[in-house]
């Protein structure tokens, strides 16, 4: 028996549904049952054809949340639908800032567990089983939901492949918010980014503590520019304030799956490996031959980034 109904929490930026939301929809369709979307924003109508094409029959729209952080209002709205008897069997969230907030609030409202960081989901008869990588992706833990549900699960980006299903535009229905929450956004700041986006670039060049000092990150940026790549970073240098958080690749940062990933001066802590192990080709440069990054590298250079990178940059400039 399949699940009767699955809700996917969808997000959009600049009027487009995020790739992560579409990935979740693609997976939800394979689990059987009705696939519907929860959306918080004023523009549900304009997303109806894209979400419909990706398999959503309905959009449960809270409408504009004005300045509220979504955690409280969206969780209150889903909880009310469940209490009224028309909630889903499973609610899928992406691992995003808002997705985690809503799922956490919802788990309390419904007194249901929330299982996070999943990369897969399957049905074992009626039972929902999710897969979560641990120890830097060395092991995969499969966990089943044992309570009656609705089940709440969060999934990491790029766990599934987004694919259109050719459905009609989704029907927009109202989802009533019962609590707007007390946290209000007073101002939004967009940090301008140039070049390809970290989680969409075909090539990513990342730097770590091995660069020695902040100014040496310029080597990463120069190399990235030459390769039309996105520059990335390990958590260590983000924490140290060398580059903004938006550069971070890893468990707490972005998950990337580029054609080529170049790790320069990165030792390969568990936290970092989780974010880049899915790259098709990995090149690592590190002076410590024992660095864990070499265990996943297709080409490993045991050497000093301060010597290798300038020569590499020069060679590429000469082409």
């Amino acid at each position, binding site marked *: 028996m399949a699940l009767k109904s699955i809700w996917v929490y969808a997000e959009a930026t600049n009027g487009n549904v995020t790739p992560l939301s579409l990935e979740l929809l693609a997976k939800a369709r394979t689990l059987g049952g009705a696939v519907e979307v929860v959306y918080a924003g004023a523009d549900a109508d304009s997303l109806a054809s894209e979400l419909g094409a990706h398999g959503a029959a309905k959009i449960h729209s809270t409408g504009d949340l004005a300045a509220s952080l979504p955690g409280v209002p969206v969780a209150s709205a889903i909880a009310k639908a469940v209490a009224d008897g028309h909630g889903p069997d499973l609610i899928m969230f992406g691992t995003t800032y808002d997705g985690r907030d809503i799922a956490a609030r919802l788990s*309390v409202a419904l007194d249901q567990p929330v299982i996070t960081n999943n990369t897969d989901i399957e049905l074992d008869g009626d039972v929902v089983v999710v897969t979560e990588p641990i120890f830097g992706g060395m092991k995969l833990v499969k966990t089943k939901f044992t309570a009656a549900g609705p089940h709440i699960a969060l999934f990491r980006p790029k766990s599934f492949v987004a694919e259109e299903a050719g459905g009609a535009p989704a029907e927009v229905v109202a989802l009533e918010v019962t609590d707007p929450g007390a946290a209000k956004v007073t101002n939004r700041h967009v940090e301008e980014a140039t070049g390809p986006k970290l989680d969409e670039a075909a090539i990513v060049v990342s730097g770590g503590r091995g660069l020695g000092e902040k100014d040496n990150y310029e080597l990463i940026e120069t190399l990235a520019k030459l390769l039309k790549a996105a520059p990335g970073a390990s958590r260590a240098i983000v924490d140290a304030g060398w580059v903004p958080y938006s550069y971070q690749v890893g468990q707490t940062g972005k998950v990337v799956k580029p054609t080529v990933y170049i790790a320069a001066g990165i030792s390969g802590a568990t936290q970092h490996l989780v974010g880049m192990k899915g790259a098709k080709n990995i090149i690592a440069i590190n002076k410590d031959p024992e660095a864990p990054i070499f265990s996943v590298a297709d080409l490993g250079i045991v050497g000093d980034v301060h010597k290798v990178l300038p020569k590499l940059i020069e060679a590429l400039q000469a082409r």
Partner: protein
Amino acid sequence: MHVVVCVKQIPDPAEPGKLEGDLTLDRSGKLILDESDSYGVEMALQLVDKAGGGEVTLVSMAPNNENSGLRTALAMGAAKAILISDPALSGAGALDTAKVLAAAIKSAEPDLVLAATESSDGYTGTVPEQIAALLGLPSITFAKEVHIEGQSVNVRRQTEAGYDEVTCPLPAVVSVTAGVVEPRYPSFKGIMAAKSKPVEEQTVAGLGLDPAGVGSAGAGQEIVAVEDAPVRNAGEIIVDEGEAFTNIVSFLDGLKVI
């Protein structure tokens, strides 16, 4: 200003992780203060300083009354700690953890609760928000900056695109990102003082919770299997003697990306 900081004591991340027979994380060895939590402790100490008075209380849940990680945070300057240790908590999920921490926090009656956005062992990342929901408090997650103004907390919250300025009334729960402040190193004096700071030990029943409702008994989830992930084979390793950059160039050439 009374600030509670949720801190987790975790197996040293530098050591390879191990699982117990029941497939839960092996926490039997020495536990250390999760580095992610040192930012919350530092933030709390700075906010109390700025407010001109008050104190920082730590709340932690750990097996076997383990408190070496708590001592580190006490040495940084926290005044006291509440430690919940109970065999009933083995296998507790995020929601159960939040229920236990929330009960302990409630008894401390703080103006502000700080936590890391996620722990460095479990990475669930939902506990701070769950605590807020259980206590009926507003919350702001992923704080890059935290300021107290009168009866409000103003936060710069990390977003995909940049950051939002968010405000909410106190008391509130705020989760802070790593790097929000530079954690101090405990001084020798601090380390000595920490030895005599009070650590109140609590049990699940002592907090007024039902032991059958937390831990693996109440989790609503059960691990069915742990499998080895497909292994990514290590490739060619070259020791640089000055010319290794050419290997990178030909590797990239082979992939037709340059």
